[in-house]
């Protein structure tokens, strides 16, 4: 299987009373009160260094994503980061997983086709094309798109990007939201007919249906543990079956928070404050902001309100009183010694039937050095035990074609970019 390191690029130094003093980490936390641009410059550089470090240590892929107006994770254009990562990891067979440019806010969407084309070219065909619908906070509140139109725009943008990559002839696009007289993308990706497409989701019926119909990899990005995750992934596998697709585990991606230390005890000591920071501060989002009414279509709304929300609200309500043990026991975070993490992660991967795992190895306020340590322990003590999972049985058709086989260039030369050598 393939395991990629995900990075959110959060603000690592919010005040202690942040969640008491401010009503949301997203949309309207006041920048001038809370943020320091010099610190942020340091965070971006640390983020890049951490991902490049993971690539050098043999991780299969490195992921960045797009969010706006928040302290939770703010790479407003993930392709700026992705292009640096592509350049810095040349010489490795680490994938550059863009999870990615938010389609409904990229106008016109051929901008995504172009930027992804650039990254695929710079990286020599190592890119995975994530195509997120975008959060309600980002798309509706920060970028002003009508909630009820978000999905229609998304579907149209997706179809336009795929056609822009694959059409041999120049074409006119007469869509509902986008009208372009002569589409003729320069550059096109190296990967043909186009890079593998991953669709991040949060349990919407419509996203399952869309991913299954288009034969894309569905990725559940969850912070709520793999019991809740199992419920969502089971829903996905139902749609895969209904769509008459095979149950190839590589159709499924899952994001898991992971923290590795020498012992279970030292893991608690090192990581608990940052886990607390992440759940208390980074996820402190005003409920009215996610999602905004209209963001879910009617069927998904009914499904969320009657099936998913009661369970999710119940879980979220308990978090403020939780201790480290609760986060770990409920597997919101898989943390501990290498042996503990190996065993729990393996169980989760099998239970969820996931072939493309993403691990969040930087959590909340984690400082740079601790992040590097987590990366090193994960890559040396955990990752090698997962390389053979699902391999031989199934083909990872959702991975860059040139890198689907066994890893050959496990570690990079670290010399491609000065940042990587630090």
């Amino acid at each position, binding site marked *: 299987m393939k395991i990629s390191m995900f990075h959110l690029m959060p603000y690592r130094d919010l005040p202690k009373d942040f969640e008491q003093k401010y009503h949301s980490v997203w949309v309207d936390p006041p920048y001038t009160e809370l943020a320091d641009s010099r610190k942020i410059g340091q965070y971006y550089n640390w983020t890049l260094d951490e991902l490049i470090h993971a690539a050098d240590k043999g991780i299969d892929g490195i992921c960045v994503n797009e969010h706006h107006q928040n302290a939770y994770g703010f790479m407003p254009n993930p392709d700026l980061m992705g292009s640096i990562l592509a350049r810095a990891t040349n010489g490795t067979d680490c994938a550059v997983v863009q999870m990615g440019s938010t389609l409904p806010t990229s106008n016109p969407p051929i901008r995504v086709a172009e930027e992804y084309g650039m990254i695929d070219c710079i990286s020599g065909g190592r890119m995975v094309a994530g195509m997120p619908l975008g959060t309600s906070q980002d798309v509706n509140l920060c970028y002003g798109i009508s*909630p009820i139109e978000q999905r229609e725009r998304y579907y149209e943008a997706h179809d336009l990007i795929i056609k822009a990559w694959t059409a041999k002839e120049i074409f006119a696009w007469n869509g509902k939201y986008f009208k372009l007289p002569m589409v003729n993308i320069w550059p096109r990706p190296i990967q043909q007919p186009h890079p593998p497409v991953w669709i991040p989701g949060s349990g919407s019926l419509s996203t399952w249906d869309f991913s299954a119909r288009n034969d894309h990899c569905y990725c559940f990005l969850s912070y709520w543990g793999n019991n809740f995750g199992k419920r969502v992934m089971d829903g996905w596998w139902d749609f895969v079956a209904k769509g008459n697709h095979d149950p190839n585990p590589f159709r499924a991606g899952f994001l898991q928070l992971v923290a590795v230390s020498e012992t279970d005890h030292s893991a608690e000591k090192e990581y608990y404050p940052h886990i607390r920071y992440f759940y208390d501060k980074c996820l402190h989002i*005003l409920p*009215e902001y996610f999602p*905004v009414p*209209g963001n879910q279509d009617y069927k998904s709304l009914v499904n969320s309100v009657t099936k998913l929300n009661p369970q999710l609200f119940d879980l979220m309500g308990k978090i403020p009183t939780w201790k480290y043990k609760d986060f770990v026991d409920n597997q919101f975070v898989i943390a501990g010694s290498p042996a503990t993490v190996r065993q729990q992660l393996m169980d989760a991967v099998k239970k969820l039937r996931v072939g493309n795992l993403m691990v969040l190895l930087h959590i909340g306020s984690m400082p740079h050095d601790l992040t590097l340590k987590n990366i090193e322990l994960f890559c040396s003590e955990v990752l090698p035990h997962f390389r053979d999972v699902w391999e031989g049985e199934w083909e990872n058709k959702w991975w860059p074609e040139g890198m689907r086989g066994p890893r050959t260039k496990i570690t990079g030369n670290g010399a491609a970019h000065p940042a990587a050598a630090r």
Partner: protein
Amino acid sequence: MATKQQQLSVWGDKVHPKVKVQGAGAPLAYLHGGYGPIETELVDELAKHFTVYAPEHPGLTSGDEDAYKALDDMWDLVLFYYDLFDKLELAAPAVVGHSFGGMVAAEIAATDPTRVSKLALISPLGLWRDDSPIKNYIVTPQADLPRLMFKDEHHPAQKRIILNPEDQPGFIRITWALGCTGKFMWPLPDKGLSKRMHRIAAPTLILWGKNDRLLPAVYAEEFKKRIPNAKVEMIDGGAHMMPLEEPARVAGAVAKFIKG
């Protein structure tokens, strides 16, 4: 006069709104606000004076949820209402709307002035002033909504607008109504009405609550200034949801104006 519910097929058979028809007398079309058809008592009161036609906004009718997709923008929505008037054989009814419904009513009256005999706008949305920004009630924290919308923060009708996860059908109904009406207002309730309002020919009543905390009274003056034949009536102590809190008083003012 009995109330009857009609389901129509409008807009090239793509939208199937339910229309409540109630009362007797001259025809009056009532357009509900952003939370859906919750102004029941106001419609009852108006029906004492008029034959009231109260349609549901596209997408709100049970079983017809995808209908919102057939209408792209305010221009489509206005034309949709002319189609609906035709189906109901309403040449030029009095048109009354509250909040979002008031915004739509003003657009209908401005686009084809011959289709509206008299116009009553109850705390309408539709204009924007940078010096008096309008709070986005769709994402206002639930705990702040009663104070923003009601004179009496404990008024029982507030459950018609508050999202309560314990009441799943209510949660779905309110969320969906905000989504479907929000389509025509997002991200700000200014879709260019100010450029078109000079076309409104119908005598117009602008009814405003003096204590409307969502839409400050400066907006009443803004509407009056731009509509050629308009008068403003301020309701003492009235809040944005005065159709729910004081239906008889609101209906009385509207009826007096339309009949006068």
